[in-house]
């Protein structure tokens, strides 16, 4: 039996889900912890454990505003979870690349913040419709952002953008500073985009010069996923 090209996607997809959900769970915990402390402070003020002074009502109102801000923040994380969960609903649909870019950027916001890298995502100026598996493309873009985040120095800026190109799209993940040589191997190891979308990665400038950006050419329509031969393109003679 040949090598199933879906396997890297499935394994990488599960790891991606685990990683992103752990991060969003942490963000939601932060929201709950802040609300919990604000509620505690309100109890302190009402119960007399806090020197409330004459402006207790104003203070309670200000704290209520902080709670609302945290609820809004939590709802944003919840929307990311919702979008992520539904990104696997269909693996052969027409979708807007801008939405996938936005979601990838939102999900990468926490890793970027922890790496102290400013991550900026620009949607294409006009809608770019692609047909294929949006989750596989999300995984590919997230993987690329991850490679550049890992390689970029703290306090730097990383930008993600896209534009129509031929019948498909061209994506750019750009670092403000030259990326280290190891990024070449990291990009080469990103199999999902190549296997599921037939994407082509290009480094700019090309090695041996230190690249500053990764360019990703994505076709308008993803080639069908095939479960055919093993990685060398050879059938297993034993049929295993």
């Amino acid at each position, binding site marked *: 039996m040949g090598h199933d090209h879906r396997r890297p996607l499935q394994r990488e997809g599960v790891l991606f889900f685990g990683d992103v959900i752990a991060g969003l*769970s*942490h963000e939601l*915990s*932060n929201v*709950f*912890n*802040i609300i*919990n*402390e*604000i509620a*505690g*402070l309100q109890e*302190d003020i009402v119960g007399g*454990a*806090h*020197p409330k002074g004459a402006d207790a009502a104003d203070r309670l109102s200000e704290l209520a505003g*902080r709670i609302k801000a*945290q609820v809004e923040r939590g709802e944003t994380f919840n929307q990311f979870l919702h979008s992520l969960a539904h990104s696997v609903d269909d693996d052969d649909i027409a979708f807007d690349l801008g939405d996938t870019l936005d979601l990838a950027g939102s999900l990468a916001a926490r890793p970027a*913040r*922890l*790496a*102290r890298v400013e991550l900026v995502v620009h949607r294409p100026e006009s809608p770019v419709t692609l047909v294929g598996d949006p989750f596989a493309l999300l995984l590919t873009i997230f993987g690329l952002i991850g490679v550049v985040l890992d390689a970029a120095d*703290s306090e730097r800026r990383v930008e993600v953008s896209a534009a129509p190109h031929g019948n498909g799209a061209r994506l750019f993940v750009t670092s403000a500073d030259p990326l280290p040589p190891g990024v070449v191997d990291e990009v080469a190891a990103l199999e999902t985009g190549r296997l599921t979308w037939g994407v082509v990665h290009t480094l700019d400038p090309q090695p041996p010069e230190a690249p500053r950006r990764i360019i990703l050419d994505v076709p308008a329509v993803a080639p069908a996923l095939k479960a055919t031969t093993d990685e060398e393109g050879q059938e297993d003679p034993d049929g295993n």
Partner: protein
Amino acid sequence: MATDRVLLVDDEKDFVEVLAERMSSRGLEVTCATSGREAISAVEEETFDAVLLDLAMPDLDGLETLRRLHEIQPELQVMILSGRATVKTAVEAIRLGATDIFEKPTDVETLVERIRSARAIRIAHEDDMAEEHIEEILRKRGW
């Protein structure tokens, strides 16, 4: 009576601000830091009875901050206050000298009580150090 001094370290600004206010209203003197580097600067400049330290922070994470704080002040009482400490990070924190691990949310009274104990431990440690120092002087002078 001297005030118990605590350094709160967490990258969530709202969290440290509100917790600091609650601790202050209970008689603690609280300094806030929103990064590991800020915490290190604060410990280099001031004396604290205890540090309450988050683990997941940008740039310098909690474990690395803990390690550096103990390089500056080995006897510093550092307690971890974290949302999601895994067993692995908890073990590593204890190995690096953390005295307690609290999982958020933790009742403020529990934290205040523990910080007050930390002050007693620090004073006892200073007394031990002073005693050793005096004994050393006496020994050197042959008294």
